């Protein structure tokens, strides 16, 4: 009934939808196909040279990765040379990857990370280490932000879904960071995270001087974590509102019934609230995942991908290459890969959360 009504006699409906569909097609669907096409060429942002079709070169340059096995250096007697700690010494990776005709398959590759099996070093080398790092950072970001932000938002929503005096004030306060531009928020947090910033001062005071100030964004180990925390704080209000709207669609009669039955608070949440939030949960999860994959503004304002690529992300790389380094085809290739990743993950989420 619905389907036939949608397709047959609903001209007004289609007419209303047309501007939306038109804009979506123009600014989202078409650019995607355009990007896919560009990723197969050597298109530059500005260049007098004609655009050439290069096949899958861009994908090859971006994704080529392999494992290089390096044996330790031997001295004249055939013994392994060891340093002061007894660790074997290895020839440098650059002796294999640069101008070495014996290893053409590793030409131009760089070390990403390595591990040891016995005295042999296994080195993961890739043509585009920065891209792989950005992929890893983005995945780590999503893995932490999606559950934590979703969970915190639910907690806040439960807290403010009460009839208290002045509850609207709390709702407004929690929602406030969402309204402020992400660029402004990022700039402010840059000051908070500075070596002589607010965060360090607070930690110093709370720990009675035990805590030494540290440079949160300038340190490889803490930079991405700092950005995760700030991003969770910034958008949690938005998802809180979505959870809240879900909470308010649950009929009060269900709560009344459960209280008559003598259900505990936990049982009420587990058997009344949570099932009622099912669709909201799917929505929140997918939206957070997609937003987290698109992480860009915080990186651009706070760290520029540094230090040592520890905060670079896929979207940041796409923009950096396409616009900064004038390599539109490279940027497009990254966009296409990102699209495929997000699509796959969304489909998996959809499958796992389907109505059984």
């Amino acid at each position: 009934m619905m389907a036939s009504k949608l397709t047959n006699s609903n001209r007004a409906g289609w007419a209303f939808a047309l501007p939306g569909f038109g804009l979506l097609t123009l600014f989202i669907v078409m650019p995607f196909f355009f990007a896919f096409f560009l990723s197969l060429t050597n298109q530059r942002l500005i260049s007098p040279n004609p655009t050439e079709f290069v096949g899958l070169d861009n994908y090859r340059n971006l994704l080529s990765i392999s494992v290089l096995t390096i044996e330790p250096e031997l001295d004249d007697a055939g013994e392994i040379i060891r340093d002061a700690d007894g660790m074997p010494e290895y020839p440098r990776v650059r002796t294999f990857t640069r101008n070495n005709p014996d290893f053409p398959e590793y030409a131009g590759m760089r070390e990403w990370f390595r591990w040891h099996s016995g005295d042999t070093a296994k080195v993961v080398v890739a043509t585009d280490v920065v891209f792989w790092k950005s992929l890893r950072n983005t995945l780590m970001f999503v893995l932490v932000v999606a559950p934590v932000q979703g969970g915190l938002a639910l907690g806040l929503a439960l807290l403010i879904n009460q009839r208290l005096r002045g509850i609207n004030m709390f709702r407004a306060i929690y929602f406030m960071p969402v309204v402020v531009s992400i660029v402004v928020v990022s700039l402010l947090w840059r000051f908070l995270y500075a070596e002589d910033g607010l965060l360090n001062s607070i930690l110093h005071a709370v720990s009675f001087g035990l805590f030494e100030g540290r440079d949160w964004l300038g340190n490889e180990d803490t930079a991405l974590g700092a950005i995760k925390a700030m991003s969770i704080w910034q958008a949690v209000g938005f998802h809180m509102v979505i959870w809240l709207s879900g909470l308010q669609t649950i009929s009060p009669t269900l709560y009344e019934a459960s209280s008559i039955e003598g259900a505990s608070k936990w049982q009420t949440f587990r058997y009344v609230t949570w099932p009622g939030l099912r669709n909201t949960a799917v929505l929140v999860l997918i939206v957070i995942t997609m937003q987290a994959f698109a992480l860009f503004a915080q990186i651009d304002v706070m760290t520029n991908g540094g230090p040592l690529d520890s905060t670079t992300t896929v979207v940041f790389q796409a923009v950096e290459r396409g616009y900064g380094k004038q390599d539109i085809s490279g940027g497009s290739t990254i966009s296409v890969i990102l699209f495929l990743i997000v699509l796959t993950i969304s489909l998996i989420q959809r499958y796992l959360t389907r109505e059984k």
Partner: protein
Amino acid sequence: MKLKATLVAALLGSTGFAGMAAAQTDLTLWYHGGGNTVERDIIDSIIADFNGGRSDWSVSLEAFPQGSYNDSVVAAALAGNLPCILDVDGPVMPNWAWAGYMQPLPISDAALEGHLDSTIGRWDGEIYSVGLWEAAVALYARQSTLDDLSLRTPTLDAPWTGDEFMAALEAAKASGNYEFALDPGMAWTGEWYPYAFSPFLQSFGGDIVDRSTYQTAEGALNGDAALAFGEWWQSLFTQGYAPGTSQDPADRDTGFIDGKYAFAWNGNWAGVATLDGGVEDVVFLPAPDFGNGSVIGAGSWQFGASGTCEHPEGVAAFVEHALQDKYLAAFSDGIGLIPSTTEAAAMTENYAEGGALEPFFSLSEAQALVRPVSPGYVVAAKVFEKALADIANGADVADTLDAAVDEINTDIERNSGYGH
């Protein structure tokens, strides 16, 4: 019907009116200094003088914020909406000229007489752009610091050697009076890195690309000289002489004035603020010589004609007008830049004989080396910036420089050699 007729008449009337006013051909000028009122006032007065005195051309101004200026021009070029007169950063000019966004500027030789060579933008044997001013970088120090640490005052003829420089940093660090011995300005990301730091590399004997062919960076950016440079650069940060990439931008602006840093590597534009900030015994020292001379970067903002402009002679007329010494002097007094001619310098407050910033004019004259004149510079500069930031953060020097070389070479290859 009547309404329609009225509208048509109004339309005809208005276009007729516009047509009459356009006896002067209108040329639009895009300028990078949006938001700076002093700069705006000076350029407005140049334009007003130009438009008032002529019947053939009339220039109108559109100013953009500097941060997004280059992006705006590229976007406009892609959309086919470039203005006639373009303001262009010196090292970017070859890229735009090569891409066809700019055309040669038919300016007379007479107008360029006596100009600092680095203010004239040449590509492929032709003049494309000319600048009203130049910028220079020097090592800021207090005379009292030099005296306290009993350091020799370096001069243009006898700059510090690399060893003397490191000894000076060590002395400043050992004195315990400063948070850091040197402020290279790591907070200023972007063009500052190649502009300010590639001269050190050149003084070591390396370069961003091999300038004999402009076809490769191999050997120039990862040869022995470059590796020595990289190790030295890293030691500045590992040995605690300089604040790293996460330096607070506010410290960059006022750290030297507040006495946090003993030395600062900074441009002439900060000179006035430093003097006003109360550092009366500030001295502007030449760059240390690491073996291949004391070198500083060159090339600032310049004016040229866009590729689609139908009236390059109009642009040339405007540029010739703007190059008058009184305007060069006005810009210099207004925003502290180095005027492009000696005559104009004599008319300024700071760069005249005995002026507070006079050393910068001599530095510019004696040591300025333009950044690689190549369309590929735009990309190479980005790669260089990242390499320097990574090395400062502790990355392996050889691997990082190798990676930078590969990236620059791939880019050159993918652009079929950039037309060299």
